[in-house]
Every structure is written in structure tokens, then in C-alpha cells.
């Protein structure tokens, strides 16, 4: 840990103008990840710009019936928002499955998206890590890989993104609003995080100093029938081994629309588009769900310690979709 200056940002443009030109500056949200990194020596900023007092602390309705979530909205407030709970239960469930009450009370929407991997080797500065130090080799490869990726990894990095919330947002086609020195951009959450490729040091497509100001969740009526399920090694306070966010729209027993995203399997929240495409127009039954899940996972490349994630993800996709299909049937009969 090194000494650093602290500034409290009063407006977004100034915050961006302060951080963007200074590679040793960083934004501070809830601090639930950054403060750990300061202590562990993973992040060594000279300047920390606190953005939690910017006016991005509300959840507001959008014209299309969706919601705009301010980047500073705390995870616990977002999970408790009645509109989120009713219209997007998958998002509320994802939020509440993450971390602890204390952490959720601090963690922000923007910060949650930008949290970094908990890979054991990334978190220990005494072991090489190409995500922490560009160009270094990946220590997880050949090491302890129980929690690591089965999809989309590269020889440079096999880490996974730890967020639960982001998995739900990807399933919901949410869009991130970003303030940069050039102006405002919109990036689908599904495109926000990268696969590691040759540059695991880049978690996202954002540039240094780009500030997330909010997240739009578009209207998706069938998301009222949605679910987040998370498998983990202990019942609480653990990152996902595998998680599934899903919403299902069934008409006449056939899948009219479906959204599936996976957590704990890749460097980014994994939108299961192959499975979705395989299901459209098919019967909403376990056999079809299983075939779709198998198709999605066909390219999985498990590591020595995490082969179980493949059947775990497959089983969970089937179970969650079956459960949602069951709810749809109940809705139709009542």
C-alpha cells in the first residue's frame, strides 16, 4: 500500500477529466473491491476519486417500461426496489446471492460491474499474473483451478468474472451508459466485459477514466418469470462455481423467447446464445432444455480441477428452465 490522495467528485465531467489523463488515478465506488486491492498491493493509485456522491443514486422508469439504474445505486437498495423484484426477479435474486449484507450495503451498481476476478494468483502479488502485470504468465494454469473458466479462456488467463449481478443484467440485455472525455456512450452489458485473449489485463472495453453513470434495463415482460440460481461451495458468502440467470416465455407449450446467461464459467458473464437459439420454437420440456444446454457447453474446455462445472452448468440450465416452464404452465391454468 502506498499513500494516495483522495478527492470527492462533485460532477461527472470533472471526475472523468481528473482520472482520464492520470494513469495512477482511479474511481472509488463502494470500495468493496478496490480497498482490498490497495491493501494487497494489487492497485497502487496515487489519486482516488470518490464518485459515490454524484447524482447517479436513483432507479428511474424508462419510457419503454424499463428501468434506469444509477451507477451509484447500492446493491442492497437495488435488490429491494419493488419494480426490480416484480419485473426482474432474476436481478434481485442475483444481487441477494452475492457477498454479504454489509458488502451489498456499500457496493454500487457501477462498481459491481467493474469488480475484478478473485483468482487466487491475481490476488497474491508474489505470484506471476498477466492480468495484474501485463506480459506475465498465468499462474493458475498448472495450479489450482477449481474456480476458473471452462469457456472462452486463453493461454494467458483462465480467470472468471465474479459478479452475480452482471450475469442477470446480461440475460436482461441491459445497456451501460458511460461518460468519457469525448461524450456519452452506450455499451450493452454483454459487450462490456472481454474475453482475455492476448490481453487479460483488460477486463472490459472501457478506457481508463471512462465512468459508468448508469445501466438501462429494457422492458421485458416475460422477465417476470425469471430466475437466478447459484451453485457454490458454501451456502452464503461465496462466489459462484456456476450460476444461471434465465427468463422464459412459453406459448402453447413452445418456447417463444428465452434468455440464458451463465456466471462462474468465463472471463465475462456468458450469454448462452447457442442454447437460446436452439430453444426458440421448441417444446418447453426438459429434454429440449438439456439438448440446448449441451449445445452451449459443447466447446467447454475444463481445467484439471473444474471439469465438474460442465455437468453442473448443464444440470442447472435444465433445472432453472424446467422450473420456469412449470411456473408458466401454472400461470396459464390459473
Amino acid at each position, binding site marked *: 500500500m502506498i499513500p494516495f490522495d483522495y478527492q470527492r467528485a462533485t460532477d461527472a465531467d470533472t471526475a472523468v477529466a481528473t482520472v482520464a489523463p492520470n494513469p495512477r488515478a482511479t474511481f472509488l465506488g463502494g470500495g468493496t473491491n478496490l480497498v482490498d486491492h490497495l491493501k494487497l498491493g494489487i492497485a497502487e493509485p496515487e489519486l482516488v476519486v470518490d464518485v459515490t456522491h454524484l447524482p447517479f443514486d436513483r432507479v428511474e422508469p424508462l419510457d419503454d417500461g424499463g428501468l434506469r439504474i444509477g451507477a451509484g445505486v447500492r446493491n442492497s437498495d437495488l435488490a429491494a426496489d419493488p419494480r426490480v423484484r416484480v419485473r426482474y426477479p432474476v436481478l434481485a435474486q442475483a444481487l441477494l446471492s452475492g457477498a454479504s449484507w454489509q458488502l451489498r450495503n456499500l457496493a454500487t451498481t457501477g462498481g459491481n460491474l467493474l469488480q475484478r476476478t478473485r483468482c487466487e494468483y491475481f490476488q497474491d502479488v508474489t505470484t506471476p499474473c498477466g492480468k495484474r502485470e501485463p506480459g506475465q504468465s498465468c*499462474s493458475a494454469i*498448472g495450479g489450482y483451478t477449481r474456480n476458473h473458466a471452462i469457456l472462452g479462456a486463453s493461454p494467458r488467463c483462465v480467470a472468471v468474472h465474479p459478479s452475480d449481478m452482471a450475469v442477470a443484467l446480461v440475460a436482461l440485455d441491459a445497456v451501460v451508459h458511460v461518460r468519457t472525455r469525448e461524450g456519452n456512450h452506450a455499451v450493452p452489458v454483454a459487450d462490456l466485459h472481454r474475453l482475455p485473449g492476448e490481453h487479460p489485463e483488460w477486463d472490459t472495453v472501457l478506457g481508463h477514466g471512462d465512468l459508468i453513470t448508469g445501466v438501462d434495463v429494457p422492458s421485458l415482460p416475460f422477465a417476470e418469470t425469471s430466475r437466478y440460481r447459484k*451453485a457454490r461451495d458454501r451456502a452464503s458468502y461465496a462466489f459462484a462455481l*456456476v450460476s444461471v440467470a434465465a427468463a422464459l416465455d412459453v406459448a402453447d407449450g413452445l418456447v417463444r423467447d428465452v434468455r440464458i446467461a451463465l456466471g462462474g464459467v468465463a472471463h465475462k458473464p456468458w450469454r448462452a446464445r447457442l442454447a437460446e437459439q436452439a430453444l426458440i420454437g421448441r417444446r418447453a420440456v426438459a429434454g429440449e432444455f438439456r439438448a440446448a444446454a449441451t449445445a452451449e457447453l459443447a466447446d467447454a474446455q475444463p481445467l484439471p480441477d473444474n471439469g465438474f462445472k460442465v*455437468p453442473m452448468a448443464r444440470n442447472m440450465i435444465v433445472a432453472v428452465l424446467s422450473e420456469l416452464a412449470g411456473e408458466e404452465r401454472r400461470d396459464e391454468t390459473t
Partner: protein
Amino acid sequence: MTKPLEPLVMGGVTPRVDGIAKVTGRAPYACEQLVERPAYLHPVQSEAALGRITGFDAAEAATLKGVLAVLSPFDSPSLTPGTDPELEILQSPEVAFRGQLIGAVVAETPEIARQAAGLISVDYEVREHDTAFSADRDDLYKPDVVNPSFATDTLTGDPDRAFAAAERAVDAVYTTPMYHNNPMEPHATIAVWSGETLTLYDSTQGVHPLRRTIAELFGLAEDDVRVVAPFVGGGFGSKGKPHANTVLAVLAALRLPGRAVKFALTRQQMFSFVGYRTPTIQHVRLAADASGRLTSISNDVIEQTAKLKEFAEQTGLPARSMYAAENRRTTHRLAALDVAVPSWMRAPGECPGMFAPEVAMDELAEACRMDPVELRVRNEPDVDPESGLPFSSRNLVACLRDGAHRFGWYGRQPLPRSILHDGCWWGTGVASSVYPVNQSPGSAATVRFLGEGRYEVRIGAVDIGTGAWTVLGQIAADALGVGYGDVSVDIGDTNLPWASVAGGSSGTTNWGSAIVAAARAFRDEHGADPAPGSEVTATQQDNPNTGRYAMSAYGAQFAEVAVDVDTGEVRVTRLLGVFAAGRILNPKTARSQLIGGMTMGLSMALHEHSVLDNRFGFVVNHDFAEYHIASCADVASVEARWIDEEDPYVNPMGSKGIGEIGIVGTAAAIANAVYHATGVRVRDLPITADRFLE
């Protein structure tokens, strides 16, 4: 001198005398003691697992404003050589394990100390290290004794022949991984060197044992060292033996006379140099006749130790005396590795050593088509199978029967994988628990009459969260024949009479016996109507029953589990432990000890696992995000009960230790329940979701 004490205050639900101070934050733990102008220590740890330090460049660190001192292997006060290789830090440039303490920075703030430590550059001449623990090594060796001084190997009859002739048998290898103790309060020390005397506020399980070690290491008279530890946030054995962190704080304090040097470990550092439980590989063979009567038991144990210093966990011990069998063998073999020194962790020996045999008993029950409770009852010995001595009391069968009744065991569907509902496979399992009545000599206590009916009892015991503050007062009240409110207790300071370590579940036996001795001597000397200021100090008497009776506490643990069909996630929905542990002196604190032990056993069964990466030689999951300890959500229902047990032989209180037995057998009960639920026999802990996925 074990004349039983009449229990009037003992056995009552007396609330913790220190409870309110603790929950309101007013009980000062080691690092919270008020000292003037504290300075803060941040350690430097080896990033090589084996080798020699060739350079230690602290030039930049030393110039940082606020840095008070830098210590290194090339610049450190001296320690008495030949005392303890684990503790003789900074005396040579040799590195024996990764994470070893090789230096320190002391500064005006913890932040400066941490920053400065990060600026130090260390060069190593690295040698190839070896941390790979395995049963296939060709350099396994037989230690002279196992912890603390038990025979390494035992042999009765001909186990191999009995096994070959068995009508029913089990032959399997079981493993338990490395565990780190991780009490809630990390190790912490404040060291103040006045120039003549040393004061230590230390998070320790024994002020006097720590003082002896520190005095010897630093060449001081014991009277020149004072250790203070009124409140300790758990130890689980890791604060039982002194570790290098305290030594480092004292070395730094010698450099800064008059300054109070604080060294509080981070959670990550807790995985480096304050002890841990060795991984074990246990080859268990059980032989029985068709009726389930055991003819042979063997447990051949392989575990690790450090090349730096030997510690041999006594994992084979329970197999020596748990059940009757004519033929019996236990062995211990060690792999000496370039790792930190293993040490005590809650129920060393019994905890891992009751996992393997108690799962094997479940397998034998299945082989015999017997109920697992009845199999254990059938093999109940009349006398201690190892020593041939009668038991002072042994109520394992009562615990099994009472527990089975309370748990609803007897309606159990005997076939595994037969209960599926709510998306889970459900099952139940049972295992036995045991923990010896340990006693060590030398504890002393002072009883003083303060006037107006009030007495003070003084003893250098330590309450590591057990309830000693309270229970010792209850014992004193009965020993003096006064009310609980008439006694005040003072503990946790070497200025008080000598007391043994809070370890081996022996604290209450040793300290309570000393208090009884002092109270009786006080009454002998001063009668029932003493003058104010009258005082007597006495030492605990040797127990004349030692060597005449085999003395242990017993228990039975029952577990119910649900294993998710889709994910394989295992959840323990119910745990019940029934114990026979002599007189329960305080039901409130006892229950807390027992369910705490059982919860730790649950954590061992499902979660805990220190992952050593052999390429680097250190535990990579070294924080609480990745080294999982059971969370509240994992602990649905944990219930501890006990049966009334009169034992006039163990000590004047009639009590047996209860700090450790709760963790013994729990993991086996859960593993057996998991088998009953799923039909999958897991012999390697922890029991994780992947075991049930294909």
C-alpha cells in the same frame, strides 16, 4: 486429593461474567491494550520456499518518514541458539519455507510500516524445494514419538492374519487435507522493552508457557518477562505453542526501548507461520465376524512435518482404544517437507483420527447389514483395549442410544440413495466421538479473603472464549462453600500464580484442581471465619487415579444432509451431538463449546481445505473468501446434549474436558450421511459438489 466437590454452584447456568464487556467492545484484546505511543510492525516474508538470502536492501524503506527500525537476518538482536528452530528467526540467512519471517519494519503507523516493507528488496539463492505430500514418497520416516509423547506404532496380535480370515472386512484409504486454525482474532502482540523488563500483551493460550519460551529465547530471567492476556478471541491450538510472530515483535521491541511495538497478523499471514493441521492419509482395515464383532483394527497413517522442526500428529491414537478387537495395529510415518511447521489444531490426533475409522465403521455396518449404531454398541469394550485399565466412566453406548432416540434414527431407511424430495437426496449418518481427560501438573492458585464475605481467586489461566472466567468462579464458590457472587476471579497474567496452557481440553481440570487445592488449604489454615487479608497459595495435587483408570469423554454425533440433485451441493440440515463428559459445570458455556466444535467439524466435512501449490510452496487460498469456513447459512440446526455422568476419578469437579470433543467424529457422521443420501462413498475431505456430478 480428588475428593469430589459438592456441586451447588457448579452445574448452574451462570452467564459469562465477561459477556457484556465483550459484546460492548470493552474487553481489551491483545492489540487493544492501551499503551503510549505505539509503533507498528509489518513483517517481511520469504518469497522463496527454500534457499538462502543473499541480499536484503532496505535502503529506500529506511528513509521513509516515520520508519523507526528495520530488522533482517543480517541485522537483528540475537536469540539463544539451540532452543527452537521455528522460533529462532532472523538468526541466519537460511530460508526453510515460503512465508517464513525474514525481516520487519517498525513505523509510526501501520500504513507506513506496510509501505516500507513493500519497498524492501530481497535476493535469494534459491534451492529446489519439495512440498509434495504423498503416500508414494520413498523417504517417509518413523518419528520417535507422536504428539506429545505417545508411541509411534502399536501392535497387538496379528492384524494381517485376522484380516485375511475375516468374514466381513473393510480396507480403504481415507484422506484429510491441510487445515489452518484461523481463530476469529488473528495472532497479535504488543511488546514493550523497558530496558530491563519485557511486557507482552499477547493473544496466547498460555501466559506462563509463553513467558518461559520467550525468556529462554532472549536469555532473560522469567521474572523479567510479564505476559498479559485477559481476553483472547479463540486459538484452536494455534496460540497454544508460541510462534515466530511473538518473537519478531520482541526482537523489534529490543530495538526500540520504551516503545510499544504492535504486531497484529493479517488474515493472509495466518496461513504462513502460526501452525496448521497436517494433511493425513489413513489406511484403515477393519475385520469382523458376520455378526459385526471386530476381530482386527488397523490404521496406518501418513502425514507431513517440516524439515525445520518435527511435529507428528497422533492421528492413529483413537484406533488404539475406541473399540474392542483382539488384533490391532497403528503406525505413523512422516514426510518431512519444505513447509511451515504443523502444530496443534483443535483435537490433534482425535479429529482426523476419528474421521477415517468412523467412516470405515459405517462401511463395515453395510458389509454386515447392520445398523451403524448397533455395530458400535456390539463392539463396546469392557476395559480400555490398549491399556487394559478399567474406564473411570465410559458412556458411549448411552450417548448412541440417547442420540438415536432424539434424532429419530430408528425409522431410518437402511438402503442408501432412497430418499428424494425437494430436488435433493436425503440421508442420515452417525459417528462416535472421543477425547481423553488430559491433565498436566503444576498449576497453582491463590485464594484471598477480602473481608465482608468476599473472596478473590487468582490464577494465570487464560480464557480463549471457553468460559474460564466464569467456570473458575463457580468452582471456587463450591470449593470455598460460598455463593458465586462472593468470589471474584483474576486470570490472564504471569503476575498471577503459574497455570498450564489452555490446551488439550485440560484447562478446567488443571486450573480447577489448583483452585480446589487452594480453597481447601485456605479453609484448613484459616477456617470458616478468616481474617480479612488471609491468603493461601497452593498447587494442584497429582491425581492418584492416573494409571489406575482410563479416562476419556465420549459422544455420538448424528447428521442429516441434503445433496442437491442438480448441483451436488451438500447442506447439513441437522446435527445432533450427545456427549458423556463428566459433570457439565456450566450448561451455557458448555453448550457453546460443544456446538462450536460441531460447527467446526461441519466446516471440516464440507468446506475447509488449505490448497498448497507445490510450484510455489505456499497455501494459495489464504483468505476467508477462498478458504471456506462454514457460514451461518451452512449451519441450519446444531444441537448438543449430554447425559448425566458421575465420575469421581477424573478430578474434584468430576468434569472432563469439552473444548475439543465436539469436533471429533462430526465429519465422519456427515460423510456417512452423505453416503446414505447418495450412495457415493466420499473418503477424501472436504465433501464438495463435484463428487456427485458426472
